[in-house]
């Protein structure tokens, strides 16, 4: 019966998300417009390069990579930092802490409903559109399964990082600044802005040792690799799993230590 209480939160989340149907439409339209812009921009870039393959990536690879990175961002972004920050400022966090569930889990599961809706309403349409535009350049095989596993791990890593950063708000009471810093760092160093393959050498190695590349670069490289070596696959997923565990432990410990800090003004 343990799972039931979590799934209730998921259900509530789905119902809540469906209240804002228009926003999904705007988001899908936005993603399509983004697809178009990225398409033309990189087409021009590749046309100026003179070669078809740059750093091991073709134009279609880059297109799929970048558009799906944005779709994944929409799917994974839970505005956790905002939520925690706002709850601290308004004092609502006291009520959440009293709930018979760990705050970390409560927050995650109350958002899980939007994962479901986001997946079907924004990620899937974008995915289909990209597959259509690139004339089936996405290999449809086992790599899809690995991709899904990789995305699940990525969601967990992303959430842990968000939660970790959100905890900082307990000390600073600054939301916007903390959130923008996190977002900028994650998006740049995870490859969501420019594929990691394009990074110059020392930077690429450094980024490889950071947890961020496990969020976007890992699942997307798995998806683009139509004939993966078992070795590479294992290393990618293994690294993700490692970061997943490390970040969960870190964010839990930090939250536990920080909870003593909390001061709530009214509520």
């Amino acid at each position, binding site marked *: 019966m343990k799972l039931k209480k979590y799934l209730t939160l998921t259900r509530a989340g789905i119902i809540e998300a469906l209240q*804002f149907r*228009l*926003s999904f439409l*705007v*988001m899908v*339209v*936005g993603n399509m*417009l*983004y697809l*178009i*812009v990225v398409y*033309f*921009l990189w*087409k*021009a*870039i590749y*046309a*100026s*390069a003179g070669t078809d393959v*740059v*750093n091991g990536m073709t134009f279609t690879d880059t297109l799929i990579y970048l558009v799906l990175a944005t779709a994944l961002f929409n799917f994974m972004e839970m505005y956790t930092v905002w939520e925690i920050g706002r709850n601290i400022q308004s004092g609502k966090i006291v009520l959440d802490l009293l709930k018979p569930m760990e705050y970390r889990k409560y927050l995650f599961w109350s958002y899980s409903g939007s994962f479901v809706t986001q997946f079907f309403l924004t990620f899937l349409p974008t995915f289909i559109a990209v597959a259509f535009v690139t004339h089936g350049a996405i290999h449809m095989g086992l790599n899809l399964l690995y991709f899904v596993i990789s995305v699940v791990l990525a969601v967990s890593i992303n959430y842990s990082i968000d939660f970790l950063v959100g905890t900082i708000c307990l000390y*600073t*009471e*600054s939301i*916007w*600044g*903390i*959130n*923008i*810093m996190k977002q*900028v*760092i994650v*998006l*740049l160093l995870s490859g969501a*802005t*420019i594929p990691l393959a*394009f*990074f*110059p050498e020392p*930077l690429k190695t450094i980024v490889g040792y950071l947890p961020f590349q496990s969020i976007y670069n890992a699942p997307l490289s798995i998806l683009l690799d139509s004939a993966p070596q078992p070795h590479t696959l294992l290393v990618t997923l293994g690294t993700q799993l490692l970061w997943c565990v490390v970040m969960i432990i870190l964010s839990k410990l930090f939250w536990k230590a920080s909870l003593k800090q909390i001061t709530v003004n009214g509520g």
Partner: protein
Amino acid sequence: MKRKGFIFYLRIYCKILAQDLKSKMSYRADFIISTIGMIFTNISGFVSFWILFRNFPSINGWSYYEMLFLYGFSLVSLTPVQCFFDNNWSLRQNVYSGDFIKYCFRPINMFFYYQSEVFDIKGLGQLAFGIGTLIYSWAKIGLAFTPLMLLKMIVFLLTASLIMIALQNAAAATCFWIQNSFYVLDLAFRFRDYAKYPVTIFSPIFRFIFTFVMPIAFIAYYPSLVILRPHEIPLLSWLSPVIGILFFWASYKIWMHGAMKYSGTGS
């Protein structure tokens, strides 16, 4: 009611500005962190630009320094919207909660009063960054420097900034009709990033869209041509100040139309 003059509004603006700065100063940590966050945003934008040009020396006949010029131009022309019109982001909460009604009862222009309430100092960092980029690329391209060019530059920068202000006003004003305008606003905000690329990379249809429907090409591309390619200036470049003013006026009308029909929430 007698029409209030420019001096009157300027005096009021300074008074409101002083109050806003005072209230911001009481959250010093937040201010410092936000400023650092803004610097992060600019650095990451520049880093991704730099990585891109390490792989591709030119895009569509535009060299690195010319693109840098466009980049700096877009940064500077996007500063006013950041500094003076940031309150647009809170419009939907104000409308939703009913707080917006307080603006309806003041004997001054509603649009003016609403926007004057927030001045975002963080934008000044972006301004400094943009001006630095502009001067650096100006010197590297080897453009001449005459008072006339400086004058042209200032006029075109100011009018280019009106475009983004207009887009944001119109996007924010949608909340008078639809409940959650965040996605519309976010969409308009995301397109700002593409203002720094030459519009010639797009196909004719999208060139038309980005020129007349979503006029992001007027944020940097058309006005920069006046400075960068003085021998082949298209008519649209000369028209860009007019178009800036036109779009601003239209967005003001939309905003006011929405505000005038606002009936409050009854609380």
